[in-house]
């Protein structure tokens, strides 16, 4: 049982990758380091995939890239409408990042989304994006007035939403990934052979994609609501 606890704690704790020796030492956590790796993967993949795009006589690579890009773009455009296309690049970045981050455990890294700091960052950025979208659409006055809609009495609830939404986004992502890791650790402890495989497909791949989808889906809905 001690072994299980140790391995769980090992899985759950976010180690300090290294320390920047300024301001009395800033600890850089593993999640940030893994994020850099993910960024590297995404950037290199982007440069390779986007290199040499053509209008006519496209190759398989470009066909796959175009259909994938069009699929994601249309998905967000349907959610956001024509007015919200400015926010699609950010949402594409986030869905790719969370998707890869949730699945990078398969490569032996610790998922950055398992670290609360990362999900807090994502949630805070999402809520800032939502409110900025609202301000851009309605102006500062309109944005403030929109808290009193549909009736002024629910204004406190609308203000509360400003904190509830990012909190729920952050905790949903964090909790799902953390829960998946814990369950996988338990399964691996109980049955080390074969049995973890289908569960790994579910928790590492399917759940990872679903959580990325849910995160950007909800963010899109909030933006849509803000720019209506």
């Amino acid at each position, binding site marked *: 049982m001690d072994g299980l606890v140790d391995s769980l704690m090992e899985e759950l704790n976010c180690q300090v990758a290294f320390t920047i020796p300024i301001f009395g030492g800033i600890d850089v*956590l593993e999640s940030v380091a893994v994020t850099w790796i993910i960024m590297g993967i995404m950037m290199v993949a*982007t440069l390779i995939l986007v290199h040499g795009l053509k*209008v006519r006589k496209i190759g398989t690579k470009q066909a796959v890239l175009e259909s994938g*890009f069009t699929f994601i773009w249309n998905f967000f455009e349907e959610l956001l409408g024509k007015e919200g296309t400015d926010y699609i690049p*950010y949402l594409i970045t986030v869905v790719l990042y969370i998707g890869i981050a949730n699945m990078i455990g398969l490569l032996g890294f610790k998922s950055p989304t398992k670290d609360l700091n990362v999900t807090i960052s994502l949630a805070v950025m999402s809520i800032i994006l939502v409110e900025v979208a609202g301000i851009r659409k309605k102006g500062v006055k309109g944005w403030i007035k929109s808290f009193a809609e549909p009736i002024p009495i629910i204004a406190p609830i609308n203000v509360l939403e400003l904190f509830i939404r990012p909190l729920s986004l952050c905790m949903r992502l964090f909790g799902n990934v953390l829960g998946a890791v814990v369950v996988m650790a338990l399964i691996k402890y109980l049955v080390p052979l074969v049995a973890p495989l289908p569960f790994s497909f579910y928790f590492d791949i399917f759940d990872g994609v679903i959580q990325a989808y849910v995160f950007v889906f909800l963010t899109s809905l909030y933006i849509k609501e803000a720019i209506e």
Partner: protein
Amino acid sequence: MLNINFWNIAFTVINLLVLYFFMRHFLVKPMQAILEERKQMVERDLDDATRSKQEAEKMKREYEASIQNADAEADRIVETAKARGTEEYNRILAQAKTDATKKMEEADRTIALEREKTLSDLRASVADLAMVATAKLLAEQSGPQNDRNCYDAFLSQSGEKHD
């Protein structure tokens, strides 16, 4: 796990912003550019195709019209030629008939005139002959010898005249 660390939140935010600007510049913009270009190209090609088709149809209509005109023209020319031919034929035939009739009448008239003339000539000759014969008969004494001479003279004279 649950240690919230300001610096790491800041790092993650910076990471995400860098990633966002990178992806926007290197993935979204080129993809949008290429898709937009393709869309315009397709629209242009479709427009061209539509225009070409319309032109082709217009030309086809024109050709058909001109061919029909040509047919009608040919028919008309043949009809005119036929009509003129028939007319000419009838005219020539009528002319020939008229001419023939006229010629026949002329011939008849000529023949009749000839006959009249011959008859009157003959009549004058016979009268002359009678006169001469009578004179001869009165001038000479009659007798068989005389009669004989008289007939001979008559016959020889009238034979000379009618030679």
